[in-house]
């Protein structure tokens, strides 16, 4: 039991950070593109390109910006999660 618990905790901390978009919430505010311009751009109508419902893996170098994008989204449409916790 202890072994199992330890192993799963280890896996948790090793999971990729994944940024997902909830299209039903997204209202095209565009805050994400400002916060995470390295990965997200906006289409003709202001909706984000570069993030999907399936999730995009975010490298460590962009974690801070991705956290900001998710936290600042006025529609709460962006979520940053560990891939093994979804």
């Amino acid at each position, binding site marked *: 039991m202890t072994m199992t618990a330890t192993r799963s905790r280890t896996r948790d901390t090793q999971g990729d950070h994944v940024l997902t978009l909830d*299209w*039903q919430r997204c209202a095209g505010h565009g805050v994400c593109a400002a916060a995470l311009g390295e990965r997200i751009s906006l289409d003709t*109508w202001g909706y984000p390109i570069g993030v999907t419902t399936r999730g995009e893996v975010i490298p460590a170098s962009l974690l801070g910006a991705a956290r900001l994008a998710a936290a600042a*989204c006025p529609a709460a449409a962006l979520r940053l999660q560990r891939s093994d916790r979804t």
Partner: protein
Amino acid sequence: MTAPLAGTPLGAGPALIAAPGPRPITGLPGLALPGRLPGRLPRELLAPGTLLLAGVEPGRPVNLVEHRRRWATAPILSLDDLVARVAAHEIVGAGGAGFPTDRKLSSLAGSRVSHVIVNGAEGETASGKDGVLLGHVPHLVLDGAVTTARALGAPRIVVRISADRPDLAISLALALAERQDGLPIEVSIGPTSFVAGEATAVIRAIIGGPALPADLGRPPSIRTGVARRRSHVMLSNAETFARMALASRGVAGRSALASASGAVRDPGVVELPDGATVADLALVAGGLVGTPTMLITGGWHGRWVPWDGLTAGTELTRDALSQLGGRWGAGAFVWIPEDLPAWVALAGIARELAAGTAGQCGPCWRGLPAIADVIAGVADGTGRHDEIADLMAQVDGRGICAHPSAAVAALRSALDLIGEDR
């Protein structure tokens, strides 16, 4: 094999900034189509069929006595037996996706299945086959659902139809009054809209939500085995259940159940034997009006192909149509009338597809109307077709359901065929 259905709440997020909310479903589809294209379902059965509809008189439902005389009672099968028979008869989902039904069934083995849902909502206005089946052979469809529910241990069956078909509610009520299946069978009536008939929208409505597509986080082909807490839902198209009713009895044989409309004398639904061609379909639909040059295969989400000898001789099967560059979909065929300019026809269909948005995802409800506007502009000589490709690229592959991508694929095939000669 489960996916949370209610993982994403529908409510709007914190309203820190005033922003456009999701759009309501736009009006009834079909209203924007040019007069010569069907704005309503091809509802009539044109002739007796060859298998599911064998011996069936157009316009008269088969009652339980007649049904039992022809097909005997529905067998009770274990899930393994049902899966084996469904696989042997190569039954695939007849709503459009064509996913193998045996795989859908076996994915539910060992799960608690709360509902078997018969999808007869038929949001595709160019298709009328499910209505024809529920209106003529309701007992065949119900038998398939009952055998499936028993094999899965599901306690209830729901038949979903759309509000513009009160005749089907009557046909089903009369059929249900004749039967005693030992499990509740309900008829559920949903809105008449293009996406309300989409599988996840039907499931969501029946288990208590809006009739709008859900993101089930699964490949579209198998996401209809949906989790609700710890139970699942088995949804299939009405035709699929009718075919399962025959497969479960070991009745061999194939047929093509197709809807013909547009430039045909008698728009409607017909069941043709294995080996029948698109030309046969046109013939049974009263023959073509004038000399059309384009055919839409697979309905509004389908593919446009030239109407020529090659197309005419193509068999009415999924594979043959794919090889042609067409699509079977739900078996809806629309001949573009000769006197209807292709761009005008396309503008009407683009408008129809735009009206079909559920209004949930921005790129779809903003993008499809924008595309429709540009195409309408090209049709009346004021717009430029070179803007279309860029807009389509911004819609393709985005959103939670298949509608935006399927709409773009259909419009692309039309543009490829029409060319830029304007």
